């Protein structure tokens, strides 16, 4: 059964996103929230690993729009990151059996 992973720490400052990337498997979703949305930047140290996660390991990658907007990141994120609003967040949490919070 699949898991929704949420990450709320910047990959420029902490290893939280890397830990999550190592545990995600095909069919899971990864949602970047709060400072985690800095992980959607192409300059992030985790950018290549995230791209491989989406393309090769079939993990669905999202970033929360209000958190992107608050930080002025809407037009700066990688094009393989999908954007969701709060109802999208709720939708994702209903589509997966469990939610793992990485913080």
């Amino acid at each position, binding site marked *: *059964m699949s*898991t929704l992973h949420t990450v709320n720490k910047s990959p420029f400052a902490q290893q939280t996103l890397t*830990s999550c990337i*190592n*545990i*995600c*498997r095909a069919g899971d979703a990864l949602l970047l929230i709060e400072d985690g949305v800095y992980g959607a930047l192409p300059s992030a140290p985790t950018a290549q690993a995230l791209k491989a996660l989406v393309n090769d390991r079939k993990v669905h990658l999202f970033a929360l729009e209000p958190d992107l907007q608050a930080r002025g990141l809407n037009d700066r994120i990688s094009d393989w990151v999908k954007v969701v609003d709060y109802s999208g967040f709720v939708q994702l949490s209903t589509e997966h059996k*469990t939610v*793992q919070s*990485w913080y």
Partner: protein
Amino acid sequence: MSRKVLFTLRHAPYGSAIAREALDALLATAVFGQDISVLFMDDGVFQLLPEQAPGGLPQKTLSSSLSALPLYDVEKLYVHAPSLEARGLTRDELALDGLVSLSSEDVATLFSEQDHLLSF
């Protein structure tokens, strides 16, 4: 009805209250007879170091509290092997007996088997 609950402990002890609160939540959940697993990963593996002596801090020794888990029928104890290796630790030197080493792929499988994931 017993449900499968995984506690993932990813934070070092003493610097914050998270590790202590995880133990409180673990024991409370155990009292309700749930099917509990505990996973130590990332800095959470530092909770398992022997010879913790927080005498100078207003806190109890976490590792001795953790060793009481089997008394509460919490016996599925796991440690993420890459987290140990990254910190120069081996399973044999840890304060808790009966720990099973898991790869990252094993952790993903463990996640997929649970009804609830709790993160501390």
